[in-house]
């Protein structure tokens, strides 16, 4: 029952690679980074159970040499959760690709607009006097008319109702 150096090294490597990928703007890389981080965390939980032992089944193994079963139960739960969330993120990436033909983390336009504003008191500003770029954006009635609410420019995606639902 000696501690192993292999697991910590793998955990560290996975964390490093996962964080590197997570910092990327491409969503696919972010997802891969998330998966690496999830695996690293699961290995961390595994090593939290101490050195490896026999399968924790009464009557099969000697209780003295059994592995700690609790971390394994925790890992199972964590794997299921990671898997479910990864599937959801994948769906979102797909959706983002369908909608805007991009799979990068989007820019918050309203945030940029507020940040780029001149240092005047906002109360003094009349939207009429502002350059169009300075006008409030980000909500439906400031979007270019016809871009969003025009069925003619509907991207070919899956927003149709399922036939049975209607």
């Amino acid at each position, binding site marked *: 029952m000696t501690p192993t150096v292999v697991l910590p090294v793998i955990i560290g490597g996975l964390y490093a690679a996962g964080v590197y990928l997570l910092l990327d703007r491409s969503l696919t890389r972010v997802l891969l980074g998330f998966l690496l981080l999830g695996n690293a965390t699961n290995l961390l939980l595994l090593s939290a159970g101490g050195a490896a032992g026999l399968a924790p089944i009464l009557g099969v193994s000697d209780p003295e040499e059994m592995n700690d079963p609790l971390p394994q139960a925790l890992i199972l739960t964590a794997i299921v959760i990671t898997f479910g969330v990864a599937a959801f993120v994948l769906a979102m990436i797909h959706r983002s690709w369908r909608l805007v033909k991009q799979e990068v983390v989007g820019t918050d336009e309203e945030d940029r607009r507020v940040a780029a504003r001149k240092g005047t008191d906002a*109360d003094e500003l009349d939207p009429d006097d502002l350059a169009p770029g300075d006008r409030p954006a980000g909500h439906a009635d400031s979007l270019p008319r016809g871009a969003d609410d025009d069925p003619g420019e509907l991207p070919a995606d899956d927003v149709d109702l399922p036939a049975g639902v209607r």
Partner: protein
Amino acid sequence: MSSVLAPLPVLLPLLGAAGALLLAHHPRAQRALSLLVLAAVVGVSFTLLFMADAHGATAVAVGGWPVPLGIVLVVDRLSALMLVVASTVALGVLVFAVGQGSADRDEDTPLSIFHPTYLVLVAGVSNAFLAGDLFNLYVGFEILLMASYVLLTLGGTAPRIRGGITYVIVSLTSSLLFLAAIGLVYAATGTVNMADLAVRLADLPEGTQVLLQSMLLIAFGIKAAVFPLSAWLPDSYPTAPAPVTAVFAGLLTKVGVYAIIRTQTLLFPGGALDDLLMWAALATMVIGILGAVAQTDLRRLLSFTLVSHIGYMVFGIALGTTAGLAGAIFYVAHHIAIQTTLFLVAGLVERQGGTTSIDRLGGLARRSPLLAVLFFVPAMNLAGIPPLSGFIGKLGLLQAGVADGGALAYTLVAGGVVTSLLTLVAIARVWTRAFWRPPTQAPVDDTAAAAAAAAGPAGHAPDAAGPADGELSARQVAWRRHARVATAADPDIAPAAGAVRALRPLPRTMVAATAALVAVTVALTGVAGFLYGLADRAAGDAVERTPYVESVFDGPAAGDAR
């Protein structure tokens, strides 16, 4: 008795969610079921609160497993109080959402997923409040986060996907950090039961303790939106439908605050990181509210005030005294109600005025006096105008800060006063522009309509011709209905055609739900004496720690649970 009741706030919504899924094609029955379930949860929560207040904390070993091994649900004054406020607010928001759904006549839209998801969200929140071990807390977080991912991206429009991706990635990172912290805690102590940990963590070397504590605090700080971990919130919340934003703003960040309270009092009572938390609280308050002052969009402005006022709660927790903690707990209860109400009012404003940009709104006070009152009362409450509950909470926190007497505490007191004042500034800007100025000074109705009319022939040719010629394909009709529902309380898109935006009547159910929540926030002021006493007792329990630990080890109602 409580051994039967304690699991119900988790079980009922989960079973209700399953039932609501089965009733997906029967919208009326689905709505009735969700309302019934949440009403039952509110009733159970109140019962639990009164029992916890009368008899002290109780623990339930779910499934009858012996205590440090199995899952334990703990009901003490703090968790019961959180449950009561959370379930009440959730019920109010659900009524609002039902009203909005019927107003939009979306009885046959794909949004039948809303009710089951909403119930799962409530189950997750309840589970997080009741969890007696760290891993169950993690599971509670994951349940509510998973539901929140779906709710935030409801309808899947481009802005929601953009905001949702940020939210999901940030939440995932915090969850993984939390999970890693659980692994390290288990490696160091051999248990994840919080009562057990309260005893064992004290034996660890100081450095290990600080490492574990800071990992947990960072994970919870992201969820609670404590600066510098708060940037995700104003980015993602405003894109969601009004009821979703409202319930997120009320509940989700407060679950993080609740977890911070447990970490700081039960697990790591030494106060090793209190000074750091103080600075974080100061930065959260001041930077958050400065962000709010700069905004011109009502929902974003409210999101920034939400971040800012989290700072008050962290301030109370960081003080580490009973008085500070009592102030923080009272402020959590107050803020859940108030922030939810304000976001619901923002939803009504968007419905009434067609936008949430305060540069474009105007004259709402004249056009809809009721809406103005509904905004004014909670807004003043948020800013802390006496005698409302926001004032009482802030006063309690400031008194606790002065009682602490340190230089840093006084800095925080000053920061709290400045934040309160700046909140008033931000709120007053909304009031003067959106509500008070004459509608004629709000120029955009005309210009937008004119611009739209100019763009109309080109951009809207299919739109204008479609209905008249009856050429809309079924797909287009479906898409339109989808778009309308997906953008929820979105402004009527119709003004593009007409020159004057018609005044849309507000659906009664939505107004009634909002009014009821406003009444709750005012009632919080009425029962503030009782509530503050309760918060004080809860804080006393939390600082003392023994009631919680003893309830788990001495009185586990293990056998009764079955």
